Structure formats: C-alpha cells, structure tokens
C-alpha cells in the first residue's frame, strides 16, 4: 500500500485497484471544527480534479477534489452522523470515499509523504 498527497491537501491511499481518499491532518486543522460532510454516492464516475465531496466547518465550506479518476465504491457513511471524525482522525477513520482507479499513472503526479511534509512546512 502507498499513500500520496495533493497540493490541495487530499490524501489517497492505494491498495491494488482500490483507493481511499480523505483530507490531511493539516487541512483538518486549518478548517477547524467540521460540522458537515457530503460524500459521493456509490457508482459515481469521477475524473481527476473533479469536486467529489464537500466539507463544512463552523467557518467555511470547502470542496474536496478527487486526486485520481475512477468509480466510487462507497462514501464514508459514518461521517453523516459524526462529521467530527474528520477532526479526530483525518488520515484514518475520517476518510471520505473509496474508488476503483481508472489510471494508475495519474498517481505519479502526486506527492509522497516526505514531499508533502516539506510542502506543508513551507506554508
């Protein structure tokens, strides 16, 4: 399994053809208290860079983009009742959606963990 990151602070963890997407700890910290998450439905076709989900904090609404193209397998149903999961465990239980990847090569443009850490350190 390997994990990649975007400049817009999404993470994507790839396990074979299936990937899990969420927002990073940095992003969750910047957003503050998260009060609502809207995740995509099963079967939705996404192209890399599409708006895939919405996350709302007390302060603001933000779009979450998909880091790679594919078909949504499931959205994280736990977030409907407990959106604060994204604050508590953004890179684990607070994942947003899973998808089957259409094109592995899209991942090459993303950052690995070290590169992302260096990117965040400069912000």
């Amino acid at each position, binding site marked *: 399994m390997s994990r990649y990151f975007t400049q817009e602070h*999404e993470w994507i963890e790839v396990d074979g053809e299936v990937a899990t997407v969420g*927002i990073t700890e940095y992003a969750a910290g910047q957003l503050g208290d998260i009060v609502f998450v809207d995740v995509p439905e099963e079967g939705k076709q996404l192209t890399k860079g599409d708006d895939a989900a919405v996350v709302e904090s*007390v302060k603001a609404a*933000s779009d979450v*983009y998909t880091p790679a193209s594919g078909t949504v397998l499931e959205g994280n149903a736990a977030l409907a009742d407990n959106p604060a999961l994204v604050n508590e465990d953004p890179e684990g239980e607070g994942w947003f959606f899973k998808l089957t990847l259409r094109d592995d090569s899209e991942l090459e443009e993303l950052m690995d963990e070290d590169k992302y850490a260096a990117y965040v350190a400069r912000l």
Partner: protein
Amino acid sequence: MSDTAPNSEPAHELRADGSDPVEELPPQALPLDAWHRAKGGRMVPFAGYTMPVQYEGIMAEHLWTRDSAGLFDVSHMGQLLIHGPDVIAALEALLPGDLKILKPAKMRYSLLLDEQGGILDDLMVTRLGTEQPFGEVESGDAFYMVVNGATKYDDIGHLREHLADEITLNHLDDRALLALQGPKAVDALDRLLPGVAALTFMTAGAFDWNGHALWVSRSGYTGEDGYEISLPEDAATAFADAICAEPEVKPIGLGARDSLRLEAGLPLYGHDLGPDTTPVAADLGFALSKRRREEGGFPGAERILAERAAGPESKRIGLIVEGRQPVREGAEVIDADGNAVGRVTSGGFAPSVQAPIAMAYCPPALAEAGTVMLRQRGKVHAARVVPMPFVPHRYVR
C-alpha cells in the same frame, strides 16, 4: 480541497456593495496584537486590522462563553466622544433614537440613517454624566458612541459633515475596547473592579484599575450577560492578563463572536444591515423611539414611518435549516417556482442549537407559511421560520 465560492468567507465587515474599504491597505496591528499571538490566536485580516479568528477552536470557545466567560478584543471598533451646544438635537437629526430621555450613564442601540432611511451603521450611544474618563468636555451634554470598525471612518466623515462646527467630535483612538461575555463575567470582573456587579443591562460607569481610567458598561454582542470595557491602550495588555488569570475567563476569537451573535439574533453590519436595508425591514423597530416616531425629524422618517404602517416588502427573519449542512450568506430564498425572492445574509452551524441557523431577508407573506426554501450552490434546503433569538438572551436588567 479549496474554499467554495462565493459565500465561504468568515464574517468580514464588507460594505453592502461588496467592496472592502480597507482591504487594499496592509492590516494594522491593534494594541493586543502580541498578546493574541502569545495566547495562540490565529491572526487574520479583519476590518483593516489583524485580529484573532480563534485560539483553541470556534466550537469550544463558543460553548465556553455560554457556560463561563470569554474575553473578546473589539479594539477595532470606533469609540467617539461627541459634545457641545445642542448636541442632543444635533444627534437626533441623524438617528431615530430618543436621546432626550436617556439618563446619564444609560445607553441605547441606535442607527445612523441616510436620507432614504437606509442604515449607514448600527451603534451604541451612552449619555455621559460628570464622571467619565474620556477627557474634558464643555458644560452641557456629552455622548460616548461605539461604532463598527469597518465603517468608523465613514461614520466620522458623515457625523462631521452634518454636525454643526460648534460640536466637538473626538475619535478616542488611543483607547482599547474589550468585551467580557458570559454568565460568569460578573464574578470575574467584580473581583478586578469591585462595583461592576451593581450595574444593570445597558448601564455604564467610570472605574479605576491600577490608576487607569476605565469606562465599563453592562452590554455586549453575544446575548449573554457581560460587560464592555474601554481602557487606555497602554493598559490593555496588563488588563487582559489580569482578567484572563481569573479561572472563569478564556480569550475568544472573532469566529465564536460571529456564531454567538448569530444565535442571539443580533444583526451584523455589512451583512444583515446596510444602506439598502431600513430599520423596519431589518426588524429593528425597537430602535425607533416612541417620541421620534410621533415627531419624525430623523433621516428617511417619511419613508420609514410609511413602511412601518404598511409593512415592509422584505423583512429580516430567523431560520433553522433542516439537516446538518450550513446555509451561508449569499444563498437565495426561492419561491415555489424556483425564483429568487430573498437572500440569506448570515448563516452557519450554531454550536448551542446544534443545527444550522440563518438570517435572511424575504417577503413577509412567504415567511408566514412557516417554512421557506433556500438554494445554495444548486442544492435546495428547507428551513423553518423561527422567532429570534435562537438562544434566549440572559441580560441582567
């Protein structure tokens, strides 16, 4: 991930036309700037200054204020001293409140109005007695006025233009302004300033703290009991340290200030109020004092009194949104055919209500149905029309 346009910004005192009069200039530092940073405040540009939007988190700060006491730095607001011959008549020509019956050390909420009855600013005005810390005044009446930060220079220009030359207007820009809000504010502040517990809501008085001349009123912008404290800027850091050493008190940022005032049903200038809104449309009829309604003689009186008799075309209402998704400023109120007939002017998740709430302007007939439909980024939300405040006021009268 990125902020959604267009209504994703935190509360920000814009002009009603959307322009920001101060955004082009680099934001200035307020007297407590270093203190906020040392306390972990996340600083953002706001109304021409850098100010703390939050410390530990908006939700926690909001709930702490409702349960205990929160310290807010509102030094960006304009503090004005107005005095001189016939100052009552001069001010009454610019706002619809009855200042004649206002007793010394009593304050009231009022509005600066333009000739069409549009709202230029909302403010607090206090009649000063003999004991006050703001400096020498000639014999006669004197008033202390607190106006919004983003509008203060426009207000000063408007006042100076319309007040006679004999009337003195001092901008007290060497004073900081703090608010201590919450049910335990009285306990904490009375330890530092014995006697403040005896003040009642919308009453003020002069107090001494370590040789510094303070002006303290029992008032605020959260719906809770609490105080607003005007003090010399060079005393602000020591005072903030002293009050935050009290176990009831934590510093609170702009984010919670916005969610608290929204729950309290209190409008925010530049969002819920502006030159395009009148006191009647804004549901601020209480600011039109009885004598002033009978006598007229304030800007836009004819239009405002006619609107008061006939009812406004559009009115500020309170909404609880169904579901959990916040509906924010800029969302549309739509009719049964999907036409936009009104607009959300403030909205967000309300920590004490545990639901999304909003203020909107819409035709009264539509609001009477009890439910309205809102459209935000193409998605329609149902919202229940409810009386404001959303959380009961707890003023000590």
